[in-house]
């Protein structure tokens, strides 16, 4: 072993390929999914401790530490390091027959090297000036003893660093598919990572608040804590999008009912409540608030709304360019922002193309009003003013691109059918060349579409023009971060996510799955030290709070459906309801700030735009009614019943009940004030002889209006 190891170590200094591994993304994803599987191996001996593994995104290398304090410090201070979980278990201090594993720091590559071989340690220390011996990393066995497994060592010829794994499957996958990694054999022997959480449960619950409509159960939190983020995310990405909203309407119709507006809302809530593809649902909900169609008028076709939601589900983990085109050509959007039936100019009659879609697709769906730096900060000219991304003249040029489109299904070569074609609300719009403005069009950044292009080619070129604008990455990154994680992301956070939008690691632009990954796994999102701060996080949207309540109480209706329709009234409902935004500007603006300390700190608080005194009271009363009544629905058919029994079972152990509420709803972050208030109240209610159910409902209601819960950190 010694000889082989030394030889391979020398090879590290031979002139290898200089280029970095261009496929790190893929090898990381393989590595991670296998790592999380290893968490279920047999338990390690109690004297051992987990050795934590980090992926350094800047250097494309891995780092290992057994020290909890060091792990915490890396998580808090080195945003480039993504925590991957426990790699294996080893001894933190010397133990019988175990030997020290030495750790070197390579000052040139900023990476670490580990060896159990004392001779190799001495050789490296004596030979290579770049390598600084840092001491003993942990203790392991030089050869196999009972209960141990080999930890395999690889040499990455691109980065000229070492990689270690205890997972046989991961080793095999790398050997087979990652030629840049030279396999060097077992480095030492250690224990499979104990079947302990790779993630603390409170962190897992916090992750679920960001990635879903909130934790549904303790079991769900524990599963994530044990399986790790990677496996959870990959399972979510693997969920089929399907066409659940259209399916819902079809089921209504096939059951003999007349489909109407309210069924479109039911379809949305049905997915939020009962579909376990929660990440897809949450991202689609966010997208529905960035690319807004609304039935507030109400004049949208019900099937159009369902098809629209299906489209967002389909694209939630797809490519933004596809999403942009699907949004543009969807008849719901066509109707909402008037691209449907938008005719070419007719100077004699005094008509010009409709500018509505041309404007909003730029301002709200893609590039925004002002030029952005890659970190989302507005650029400023010498006078300190922001720089517009487009002018009215640009709008008029783009408006001509979006002419000639109407419902699918007609004869596009028959000019007369353009505004007479039968309505088709679920298929993408089709173009009538005779109604398309045929002149050349000047787009952004000097792109000119020649005259005489087909409507389809004009559209593709125009959407490409927007898609390739450098603003899109930071614009979309910031908006999605605001919906999922925090209202005020650091510029560096936006920059990192935008970079993944610009290149998913495999050269593709606009990969939303990579963007969602980057948002949720970013050090800023996962860093728990922000919990002690005063600005990180966001207000949970009222709709998210309501879904959270219904899921965590396993709300169900006798017919397996729901009857949730209009929650947009702030006086006695939520002031927010899917598909019912007041305008294309959504319920709230991403730049809204609340007068007072938030504005004075230069921060924004988007959700607070709808948090008026009326809405704060009205929505609190709404939660009170639902919790008090244990039921909710606009109709008896489809009325949901909430199940408080798991909480009621804990009611005679108030501390446990409050702990349960804390884990489920506040990710273990409940303040001492709220905890004490709840415990005192529970004791007083018990002393009054109130039933267990009454006590539970009082506690839940109080938590739902407490800032601990309303503000997600």
């Amino acid at each position, binding site marked *: 072993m010694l000889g082989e190891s030394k030889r391979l170590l020398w090879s590290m200094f031979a002139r290898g390929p200089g280029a970095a591994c261009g496929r790190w993304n893929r090898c990381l994803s393989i590595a991670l999914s296998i790592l999380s599987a290893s968490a279920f191996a047999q338990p390690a001996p109690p004297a051992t401790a987990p050795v934590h593994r980090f992926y350094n995104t800047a250097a494309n290398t891995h780092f290992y530490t057994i020290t909890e304090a060091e792990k915490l410090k890396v998580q808090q201070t080195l945003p480039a390091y993504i925590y991957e979980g426990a790699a294996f278990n080893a001894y933190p201090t010397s133990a019988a027959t175990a030997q020290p594993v030495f750790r070197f720091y390579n000052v040139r590559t900023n990476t670490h090297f580990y060896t159990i071989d004392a001779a190799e340690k001495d050789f490296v220390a004596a030979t290579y000036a770049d390598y600084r011996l840092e001491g003993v990393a942990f203790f392991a066995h030089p050869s196999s003893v009972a209960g141990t497994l080999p930890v395999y060592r690889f040499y990455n010829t691109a980065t000229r660093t070492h990689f270690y794994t205890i997972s046989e499957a991961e080793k095999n996958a790398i050997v087979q598919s990652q030629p840049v990694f030279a396999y060097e054999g077992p480095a030492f022997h250690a224990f499979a990572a104990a079947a302990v959480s790779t993630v603390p449960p409170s962190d897992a619950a916090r992750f679920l608040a960001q990635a879903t409509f909130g934790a549904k159960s303790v079991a769900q939190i524990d599963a994530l804590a044990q399986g790790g983020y990677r496996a959870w995310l990959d399972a979510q990405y693997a969920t089929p999008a399907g066409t659940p909203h259209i399916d819902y309407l079809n089921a209504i119709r096939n059951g003999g009912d007349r489909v109407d507006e309210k069924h479109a809302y039911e379809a949305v809530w049905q997915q939020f409540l009962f579909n376990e593809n929660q990440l897809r649902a949450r991202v689609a909900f966010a997208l529905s608030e960035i690319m807004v169609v609304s039935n507030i*008028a109400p004049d949208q076709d019900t099937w159009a709304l369902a098809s629209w939601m299906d489209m967002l589900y389909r694209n939630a983990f797809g490519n933004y360019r596809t999403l942009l085109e699907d949004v543009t050509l969807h008849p719901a959007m066509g109707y909402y922002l*008037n691209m449907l039936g938008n005719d070419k100019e007719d100077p004699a009659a005094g008509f010009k193309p409709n500018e509505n879609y041309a404007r909003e697709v730029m301002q709200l769906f893609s590039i925004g009003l002002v030029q952005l730096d890659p970190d989302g900060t507005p650029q*400023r000219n010498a006078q300190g003013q922001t720089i517009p991304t487009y002018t009215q003249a640009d709008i008029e040029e783009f408006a001509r691109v979006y002419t000639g489109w109407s419902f699918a299904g007609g004869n596009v070569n028959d000019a007369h059918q353009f505004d007479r074609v039968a309505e088709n609300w679920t298929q993408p719009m089709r173009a009538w060349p005779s109604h398309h403005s045929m002149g050349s069009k000047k787009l952004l950044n000097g792109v000119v579409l020649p005259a005489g292009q087909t409507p389809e080619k004009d559209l593709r070129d125009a959407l490409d023009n927007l898609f390739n604008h450098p603003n899109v990455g930071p614009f979309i990154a910031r908006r999605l971060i605001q919906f999922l994680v925090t209202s005020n992301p650091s510029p560096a956070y936006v920059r990192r996510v935008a970079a993944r939008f610009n290149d998913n690691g495999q050269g593709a632009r606009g990969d939303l799955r990579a963007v969602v990954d980057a948002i949720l796994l970013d050090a800023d999102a996962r860093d728990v030290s922000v919990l002690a701060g005063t600005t990180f996080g966001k207000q949970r949207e009222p709709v998210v709070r309501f879904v959270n309540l219904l899921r965590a109480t396993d709300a169900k209706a006798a017919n397996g459906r729901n009857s949730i329709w209009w929650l947009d009234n702030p006086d006695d409902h939520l002031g927010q309801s899917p598909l019912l935004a007041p305008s294309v500007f959504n319920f709230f603006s991403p730049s809204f700030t609340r007068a007072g300390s938030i504005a004075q700190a230069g921060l924004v608080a988007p959700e607070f735009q709808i*948090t008026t005194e009326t809405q704060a009271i009205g929505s609190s009363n709404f939660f009170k009614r639902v919790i008090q009544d244990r039921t909710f629905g606009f109709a008896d058919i489809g009325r949901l019943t909430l199940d408080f029994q798991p909480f009621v079972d804990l009611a005679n152990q108030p501390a446990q009940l409050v702990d349960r509420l804390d884990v489920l709803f506040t990710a273990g972050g409940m303040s001492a004030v709220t905890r004490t208030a709840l415990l005192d109240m529970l004791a007083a209610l018990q002393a009054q002889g109130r039933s267990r159910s009454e006590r539970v409902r009082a506690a839940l209601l109080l938590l739902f209006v407490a800032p601990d819960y309303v503000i997600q950190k």
Partner: protein
Amino acid sequence: MRRREFLKRGAALGGAAMLGDLGRIAHAVGPVNDYKALVCVFLFGGNDGNNLLIPRDAAGYAEYARGRGQRLALPLQDLQALNLTNTPGRQFALHPRMGQLAAIVNQGKAAALANVGPLSAPLTRAQYRNQSAPIPPNLFSHSDQQFQWQTSITDSPMRTGWGGRLLDLYLAQNQTPVASALSLAGRSTFLNGAQASGFSVSSSGNFGLDFYESDTATDPMSVAFRKILTVQRPHLFEAAWLDTISRSIVTQRLFNGAINDAPALQTQFPNTGLGDQLRTAARLIAARQSLGVKRQVFFCSLGGFDTHGEDQLADQGDNLEDLSGSLAAFYNATVELGVAAQVTAFTASDFGRDLPANGNGGSDHGWGNHHLIVGGAVNGAKLYGRFPTLVVDGPDDSGGGRWIPTTAIDEYGAAFARWFGVSRGELPALFSRAPVTCGLSVRPSRPAQNARR
């Protein structure tokens, strides 16, 4: 950091200097002993003013009909004629479905203001086209133009609304400061001043929290809730949530009590969202004495004016009928309450719309717009400002039939500030520069009315 620069810039231009000036003026305005209320009705989406106020003399109507084309021109015979007293040689009308408001104009209790909008400085067509004079940023964008209308600031990052800044001057004279700036339509920038802060009240008139009885209640839930409410939270968002809830609770009793003590209102309002808002505003005005307020600003709104599509004529008609009926009822309610000359309502909107129809038969975002001012103090039956030439590429056109305003928003606002009692010399501190008067005349109420309050 750019953000910090941004804030510093804001402070230098507006924030700190403004605060100092306002403090000085607040002293200067002196005690007032009468009651006045200003009511903003914001028409969200950009009302098509070209079909709100329409020329009806032969030449004017011909120009209008030509410019709008068949799809948007309203028939002459349907228009609601106005008998304006200051437009020699020209005649105007309101939209066909605004008969109730036209009658109030003709009684001399309402007026119109032509072609008002955001301006950084007076601007000609030539200057706009060569960009040789300051032009407000992000024209034709809903969010930006709503913001500019509500702040009346086009060229600095100051984030306060002019309704709130106006109230800042009088806040100290209102016994119940929280009842000074009242929104019946949710959050608005308009009502947020340096000190004044818009308070949102329900248009239904129900203000209560169902599960918290009072600050002295001893039931376990009230005790626990009070504990959660009263302990300060360091997290800014948590503190903001508690602040919102706490403010609501304190004031719900106040408003409920005041409204219940006030005389019942006989005037019937339309059964619409705007009707509800204005009825509640009227009920709160009726309660002004128990609330102890001298100056109030209300914010109401009506949405659905972004009429790009083929439904423009129908949708705008429905909306304007609502506006007309609700404003007329509101005026009648102020007459009933004996405060007609102490309450002035006015309209605002994102922007006007362009003159020609678009490919769907609707209209797109414009700029300058016409607005209405209603109240017993209004020197009514008049058209203020300068009515634009309704011709694409004419002298008032920025391009495509979007009028370059000839009256700035701050001139519009200055008329109300003067009516409230702000002196001419104090206007620059309110509006960041000295607004030229647009001639809009809202007469100070007579001492007899003051005494009656």
